[in-house]
């Protein structure tokens, strides 16, 4: 898949933002007043900023409201509903904490649950696609949720939780990569089933339909070199998971915590880039671009 910067920014930032909102909703930390304002401002900038970035890749952003209509069948539509309700509920909860010094815990729990629902619906947009075997697994929602929780704990300053959740998310990430590398060959879809010509012998794409490129090739057939991908995985794992854990284990300082957060965001953005760039859409088989 084409790793569109807008989508990478969106999934990385909004995942973190909603993770932070989850912890704020649970009262971890139980902030009020100016402190609460700062925490909520960061969470909203990440969550809303991410959502806005995701509209950049739409052909017709002005019609975005229509996307709320098909929640019965579409995960993208459900994501829209989850995001708006999470943001509204958490805004009410946040306003209580910032302006009234009050903590409406029930509202907070509801907001926390909705924040996780956003991350889950986002992950299901990808996990539902049978056309992309690497994504089409229960592990994808697990990956997104564990990442969002780990990042949220880190941003919320919940060191103990972060120290549990970050290694856990790292483990899920590695398992997801390992499973993903086998996914296409295990999916049963190959050039023989794509063309139905397998019975006659070995099928080889002889000539593409056009001499130039097209939408399908630009959008779905992105090939990353194995070596390149392996290096990026090491970078993603080190910056996203390992380094933040090490920094958190050192005696606490705000500077170190700041570095941990930046390192985590960079690592996760790298992992998100790989999430898209390494994803093999089966349409590539028609173009002879996949070795299953």
């Amino acid at each position, binding site marked *: *898949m084409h790793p569109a910067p807008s989508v990478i920014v969106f999934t990385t930032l909004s995942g973190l933002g909603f993770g932070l909102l989850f912890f704020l909703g649970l009262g971890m930390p139980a902030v009020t007043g100016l402190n609460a304002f700062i925490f909520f401002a960061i969470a909203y900038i990440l969550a809303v900023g991410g959502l806005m970035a995701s509209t950049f*890749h*739409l*052909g*017709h*952003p002005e*019609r*975005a409201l*229509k*996307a*709320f*209509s*098909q929640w*019965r*069948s*579409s*995960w*993208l*539509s459900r994501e*829209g509903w989850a995001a708006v309700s999470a943001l509204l509920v958490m805004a009410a909860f946040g306003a209580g904490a910032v302006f009234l010094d009050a903590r409406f815990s029930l509202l907070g729990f509801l907001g926390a649950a909705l924040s996780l629902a956003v991350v889950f619906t986002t992950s299901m*947009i990808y996990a*539902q*696609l*049978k*056309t*992309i075997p690497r994504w089409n697994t229960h592990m994808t929602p697990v990956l997104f949720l564990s990442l969002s929780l780990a990042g949220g704990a880190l941003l919320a300053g919940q060191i103990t939780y972060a120290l549990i959740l970050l290694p856990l998310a790292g483990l899920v990430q590695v398992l997801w990569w390992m499973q993903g590398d086998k996914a296409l060959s295990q*999916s*049963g*879809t190959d*050039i023989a*089933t*794509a*063309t*139905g*010509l397998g*019975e*006659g*012998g*070995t*099928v*080889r*794409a*002889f*000539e*593409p*339909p*056009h001499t*130039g*490129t*097209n*939408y*399908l090739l*630009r*959008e*779905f057939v992105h090939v990353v070199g194995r070596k390149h991908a392996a290096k990026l995985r090491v970078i993603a794992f080190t910056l996203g998971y390992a380094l933040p854990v090490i920094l958190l284990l050192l005696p606490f300082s705000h500077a170190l915590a700041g570095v941990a957060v930046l390192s985590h965001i960079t690592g996760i953005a790298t992992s998100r880039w790989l999430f898209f760039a390494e994803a093999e*859409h*089966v*349409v590539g088989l*028609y*173009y002879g671009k996949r070795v299953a």
Partner: protein
Amino acid sequence: MTTLPKTTNKKLGLVIDLDTCVGCHACVISCKGWNTENYGAPLSDQDPYGAESTGTFLNRVHSYEVQPLATSTMPHPAAQLIHFPKSCLHCEDAPCVTVCPTGASYKREEDGIVLVNEADCIGCGLCAWACPYGAREMDAQEGVMKKCTLCVDRIYNENLPEIDREPACVRTCPAGARHFGDFADPESHVSRLTAERGGMELMPEQGTKPVNRYLPPRPKDRMDVPQLTDTLAPHLAPVADEPKGFMNWLDKALDRI
């Protein structure tokens, strides 16, 4: 509505005959022509006369080579070249429809045609992600999703002479490799062709239940199989297998030179 109809009254679709398609791309051009001049956003081209030209197409023709395995009777089997037109297969379980957040993508209950209402499409591209066949393309000019309409604006169009009330690609194909009809009717032309020739589904394991069917190519070139090399061979059996007498001597003499 992007929930799928439970059943459709008709199952309109195409049969594509891989045995007769000659790969001329006439269907590609007639499809592009009809769908640019008629319903919906035109199919745009970018940099059409430049070095990097691309454009939107609803139907594309691939070419594949099939190399049979060598066996003891056929040590050098001939590879076969197969031209492979591909447009939307109007799937019964169309994943492109259910993922659409706006309801722009839908499958018609009356005839099973899968369409995009361009006025509702936000151009998110998710439906194209969900289609395993690459049958949907986002138009770079209009920012809306384009796909084969099964020429819905021809097949019911009473302003056209009756002979033209079939998809442009079917009407154009000089080899008769594309057939249009109702798969829900077991007596239809397309159902009979499918039954007689073993019409196949593409990527059945994806669970999309495509309506369109592909007729497998017949083996054409059997040079390797001695009994099939020449149908006249039995009547033209050589008179003398081994040269004898003077001819034998001449043969050997010539060999020695």
